[in-house]
């Protein structure tokens, strides 16, 4: 074989030789796409904290499901629904600053999840799986489930794109344009909840926020339009999945955390690389303004 190509072998050989790694790459790419689509609106709306709350809110549900021997996804889905109710109640009614309320809700749910799990005989294994995921144990059944989540998340994005973008700019604008803010707010929470439920088995509830936020935030830095932001987020997310998995294979480190860590440092690199352009943009304008007057 050509020695130059052989040098690159470590980049694909792991996937050729190991079916479980191929599954993991497929699953984490699906998760990356799901999170990029949902995360784009989360970042646009400045909703990161809500995403975090939803991700932690599902923990008790998963813990109960595991104790009862029911699939974790079922518990996560129920937990997400409860948490969405809690978050929307807090964001719409409570006078306490909503980040305090949401913060309390999410540490409350996290500690409840740990308490429930501590009743299990395999406490450490269970809690590790919930918090950090189990990327290398992905089954084909999980892949089917993720494809379903992807289809629903994309369908919501297509359906609600205009009101979601209006709401990112100004909620009142969405309302005076004839869209129900209550309905679309709920729909956005549902989309984020679905993304969390579809992703936690791989990267864990603690790390799913990274997949939701980092690629979309990097996308926001390079893009001038929402559509390009979403496509860039997908590209950053899928690339991070691949790089994270290869790193995890060769250095024998945790796969889910490698992927999330990669997506965060990709964001940092993008932020640094785009500094000149963003600064230039700011300086160009007054100059241009003078010209026209």
């Amino acid at each position, binding site marked *: 074989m050509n020695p130059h190509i052989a040098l690159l072998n470590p980049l694909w050989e792991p996937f050729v030789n190991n079916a479980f790694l191929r599954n993991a790459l497929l699953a984490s790419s699906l998760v990356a796409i799901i999170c990029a689509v949902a995360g784009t609106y989360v970042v646009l709306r400045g909703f990161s904290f809500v995403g975090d709350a939803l991700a932690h809110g599902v923990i008790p549900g998963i813990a109960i499901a595991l104790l009862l021997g029911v699939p974790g996804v079922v518990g996560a889905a129920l937990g997400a629904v409860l948490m969405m109710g809690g978050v929307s109640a807090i964001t719409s009614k409570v006078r306490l600053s909503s980040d305090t309320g949401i913060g309390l809700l999410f540490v409350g749910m996290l500690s409840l999840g740990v308490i429930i799990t501590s009743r299990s005989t395999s406490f450490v294994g269970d809690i590790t799986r919930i918090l950090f995921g189990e990327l290398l144990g992905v089954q084909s059944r999980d892949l089917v489930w993720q494809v379903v989540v992807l289809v629903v998340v994309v369908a919501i994005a297509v359906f609600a794109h205009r009101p979601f973008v*209006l709401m990112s700019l100004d909620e009142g604008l969405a309302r005076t344009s004839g869209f129900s803010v209550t309905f679309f707010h709920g729909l956005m929470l549902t989309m984020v909840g679905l993304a969390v439920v579809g992703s936690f088995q791989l990267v864990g509830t603690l790390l799913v926020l990274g997949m939701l936020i980092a690629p979309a935030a990097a996308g926001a830095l390079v893009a001038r339009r929402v559509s390009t932001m979403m496509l860039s987020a997908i590209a950053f997310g899928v690339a991070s999945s691949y790089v994270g998995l290869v790193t995890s294979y060769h250095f024998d480190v945790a796969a889910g955390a490698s992927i999330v860590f990669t997506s965060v440092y990709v964001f940092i690199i993008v932020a640094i690389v785009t500094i000149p352009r963003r600064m230039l943009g700011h300086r160009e304008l007054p100059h*241009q*303004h003078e010209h026209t007057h």
Partner: protein
Amino acid sequence: MNFRTNTSTLTDMITTANAITATRLQVGHGLHSVVHDIDLEVQSGGLLVLIGTNGSGKSTLLKTLAGLLPALSGSVSVLGEVPGALPKRVAYLPQHPVSSHTLPLRARDVVAMGRYAHLGLFRRESDTDRRAVSDAITRTGTIDFADQPLRNLSGGQQQRTHLAQVLTRHAEVLLLDEPTAGLDLNGKQSVADIIAAERSRGVAVVLATHDLQDAVAATSVMLLAQRVVAYGPPDHALSDDNIRECFGFTQPH
């Protein structure tokens, strides 16, 4: 819109003469009342200017007319319907803080969002929509920076972008909250020209401001200070006593 104006008959005029009517209207946030006993009328082509300091209730009244806040008591109708019922025919310009948000939207995209009320969830932009957007961009001078991201724009440029967005709606009622804030003299004049042009095609305009200059062209003026200090034609409402009462001892700027 064109259909309505072209075919207005006598009966049409009688039933639609008042674009906005409020009777004993009380506005506020939740249980907190800000201004009560507001009576007002704005006719097609009319300009009502709301004047008051921050917290006087002018923004609260505008939000109520836009359907963003429920009326606490009394009655109010906009084009014969409850506020907020006619998104295609009523456009509202909120008081915009300068956005430092990282939204990846160009000024042009923000302007085009004004057409969403007509387009709904799925309908694709037609030539009419595109023309509405490019006209508004030209009229407001937004064209100078239309392809720049919103986040790179100055406060005044963002203000003009949002005004352009409101104009794309081709509404019959415009509710404008401090549209001249952050604009230089040229900018203020061009906003006044735009309002005059809109009125000449039959649009009713309600404008909130703390700048007495904005009231010059008004058909009626309402001075607010958490209550209605005065309401009527400008030369009547803008008496020295009323102005002093409206602004307290602080000098209007």
